[in-house]
């Protein structure tokens, strides 16, 4: 076993009803960047939680540097030299950077010493960070730096990164990769989880591919094409969404100088946003999370009210109208947060279908609900979007994230909207289902609807959008045709690398 940093042998973990990991084995060498690839639900997260001591395996064992490794809790894993950067950051908004870092350490030094150390390490690795700033005020990229520095201060031998680039601009990804390569050169191993294949090809030495909890193969990413890896992940060939060419029609939705204040303490207010979307057009809006996406969707849906003339639908000023009135007029929306925003967790799918579909689908008469019709509407959504569920009486919370996403998007698409606004339409959805959702959006556009897709997945936007713009700190960049845009141009539209201009000056 000499030479190996971490050996994993036959790890198995089952939850009631699902086997998250079944007999997974692989090795990580010192100084290696090892990729863990797989669809959502393939068991990547459970696997790394076992390595980090958050979840106990049912069977199998691990060997770290020649010694049996059975971390009972994250503290033990950290003491053994394993650190982890989480996908959804494990940060505390109301505390400052130094306090957040201290919470991740076993024996933190005094705050002032720690702050000096943070400044040191952050400069050494090219990740500028002010230790006294409140984390709630930081951008997503800066928040990730906090997590990384928290890990680096413990001199880890193995750094686990769970989908680290999903919230970064292309420039920030470059900076992250430079940091990771530097760590690798110093002998630190990295376990890198992602489903972005090009990134893995650029960074990783070795990849282990999981599907439905089982290891289905390994490859050397540099020598394997992205298409080959995708096939290994999905197990079949992918269908690419396609669209018939359309000529843009009349303007259906227009924003004129939309400015609204965010209702949340750490939210982003929208500043002077103007745009037009024509019939048959798909407008893609990129942006790092927390730059006003949620607020824009709320302002379009009517959850946040604006001045009447700021939102115009088919020539009618609707800025001051609420969600119900807008739905009736044909402006439908699907927010990002599935449970609690797009769907009521404890209500059945039929009830959830009623919630937004009552008026347009005539599921209601004189204030009384037509349950039979609602049920067949829900069944139609389930059928067309291949929602995997026992039936329309199932509670929304019982569905997996991807399946519920298919349902909430399908619910809006099936109501034949004139204008549809979606936020993160394929977030957490596996590749084949994502293709179905994107195809449905494109079909709507061909049918004469105007579509606004807000997403952090640039590949998705490039696939569906005719025109492209980015949100940055509540402002909208100029709108440009999506065809021919380079990654670098997109990155600049998204605001470049936050805070770096300052550091270089």
């Amino acid at each position, binding site marked *: 076993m000499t030479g190996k940093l971490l050996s994993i042998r036959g790890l198995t973990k089952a939850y009631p009803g699902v086997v998250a990991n079944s007999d997974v084995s692989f090795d990580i060498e010192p100084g290696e960047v090892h990729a863990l690839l797989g669809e959502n639900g393939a068991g990547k997260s459970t696997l790394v939680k076992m390595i980090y001591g*958050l*979840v106990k395996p049912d069977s199998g064992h691990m060997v770290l540097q020649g010694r049996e490794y059975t971390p009972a809790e994250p503290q033990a894993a950290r003491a053994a030299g394993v650190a982890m950067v989480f996908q959804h950051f*494990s*940060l*505390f908004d*109301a505390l400052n950077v130094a306090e957040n870092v*201290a*919470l991740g350490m076993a024996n933190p030094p005094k705050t002032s010493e720690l702050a000096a150390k943070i400044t040191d390490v952050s400069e050494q690795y090219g990740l500028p960070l002010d230790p006294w700033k409140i984390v709630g005020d930081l951008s997503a990229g800066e928040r990730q730096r906090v997590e990384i520095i928290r890990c680096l201060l413990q001199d880890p031998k193995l750094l686990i990164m769970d989908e680290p680039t999903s919230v970064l601009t292309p420039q920030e990804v470059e900076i992250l990769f430079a940091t990771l390569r530097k760590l690798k050169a110093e002998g630190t191993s990295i376990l890198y989880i992602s489903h972005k294949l090009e990134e893995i090809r650029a960074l990783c030495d070795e990849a282990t591919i999981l599907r439905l909890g089982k290891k289905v193969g390994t490859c050397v990413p540099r020598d394997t094409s992205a298409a080959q890896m995708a096939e290994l992940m999905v197990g079949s060939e992918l269908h690419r969404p396609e669209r018939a060419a359309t000529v843009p029609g009349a303007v259906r939705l227009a924003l004129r100088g939309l400015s609204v204040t965010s209702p949340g*303490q750490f939210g982003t207010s929208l500043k002077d946003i103007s745009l037009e979307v024509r019939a048959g057009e798909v407008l893609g809006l990129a942006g790092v999370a927390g730059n006003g996406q949620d607020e824009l969707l709320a302002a379009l849906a009517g959850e946040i009210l604006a001045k009447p003339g700021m939102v115009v639908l088919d020539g009618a000023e609707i800025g001051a109208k609420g969600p119900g009135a807008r739905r009736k007029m044909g402006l439908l929306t699907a927010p990002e947060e599935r449970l609690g925003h797009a769907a009521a967790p404890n209500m059945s799918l039929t009830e959830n279908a009623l919630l937004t579909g009552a008026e347009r689908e005539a599921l209601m008469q004189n204030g009384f609900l037509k349950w039979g019709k609602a049920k067949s509407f829900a069944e139609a959504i389930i059928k067309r979007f291949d929602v995997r569920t026992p039936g329309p009486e199932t509670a929304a919370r019982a569905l997996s994230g991807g399946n519920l996403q298919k349902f909430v998007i399908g619910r809006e698409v099936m109501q034949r909207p004139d204008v549809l606004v979606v936020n993160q339409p394929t977030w957490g959805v596996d590749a084949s289902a994502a293709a179905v959702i994107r195809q449905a959006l494109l079909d709507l556009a061909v049918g004469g609807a105007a579509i606004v897709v807000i997403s952090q997945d640039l590949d998705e936007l490039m696939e569906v959008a005719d025109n492209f713009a980015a949100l940055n700190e509540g402002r909208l960049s100029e709108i440009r045709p999506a065809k021919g845009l380079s990654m670098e141009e997109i990155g600049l539209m998204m605001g470049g690398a936050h805070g770096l201009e300052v550091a270089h000056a």
Partner: protein
Amino acid sequence: MDLSAINPILLLASLMVAATAVMIAALGELIVERAGVLNLGVEGMMITGAIIGFAAAVHSGSPAVGFVAAAVGGAGLSLLFALLTQVALANQVASGLALTLFGLGLSSLIGQGYVGIKPPVIPKLNIPLLSDIPVLGPILFRHDMVVYFGILLVVLVWLFLKYTRAGLVLRAVGENHEAAHALGYKVVRIRVLAIMFGGACAGVGGAYVSLVRVPQWTEGMTAGVGWIALALVVFASWKPWRVLLGAYLFGGVTVLQLNLQAAGIAIPVEYLSMSPYLITIIVLVIMSNRRSASPASLGKTFHAAQ
């Protein structure tokens, strides 16, 4: 009406006494809420502490034993709340309200045989030299131990939250319990300890009412002070020094209106009686105009998934 009968020195001195019960209870609740738990049972724990402390002091003849018993009783009752909300994952608001109702009933049951009895007296600390200073002496330095304990507790809670690692972990748990769990902190254990501390403080606050403020046992004698303590925590934006300020304001208006009643002022007694509650809340609402400094996980049930 004779306002000159009101002695300002005496007024300020009794202000400190009147503020102590609500202050200690509020500090306990502050720690509980900073850990992300909303315990609406403060009133119930206070009244239970009041009767247990009263009974223990009467039987032992020692007020100190009474206060310790009250702390244990309050903590014991809060353990029930901890069991419901942290282990059985019951709703915190409902459990807290139930705890208040339960505490009120339990205390009247225990208190049956104690109506009309006088508890042992707590000696006032006449701090030598300091208590002889004119004006300041009688206001600040001629009180019982518990008054000073309350002020010390403000300092300790402040130091704990600001400068200790345990305090940082506690705040982290209240701020984002998922993240704290992911970092390996024992969310439930920390919360149960915080809840017990809150219970003990409420118990001591209650015992202060029955042993010093009044001093006798009457059913429902805490008279909503527990609710004021709860309001105090929120309007003090979860900061210990503001709790001290709010408590003194509440105590001040309480003794002032009593004095005004005694002086026969031409305002109906009902208005005077409601004034401490009203004024405290109005002032604190104005002070806490900055929205939502509340711990982000406050009142949310934590369930360690997977």
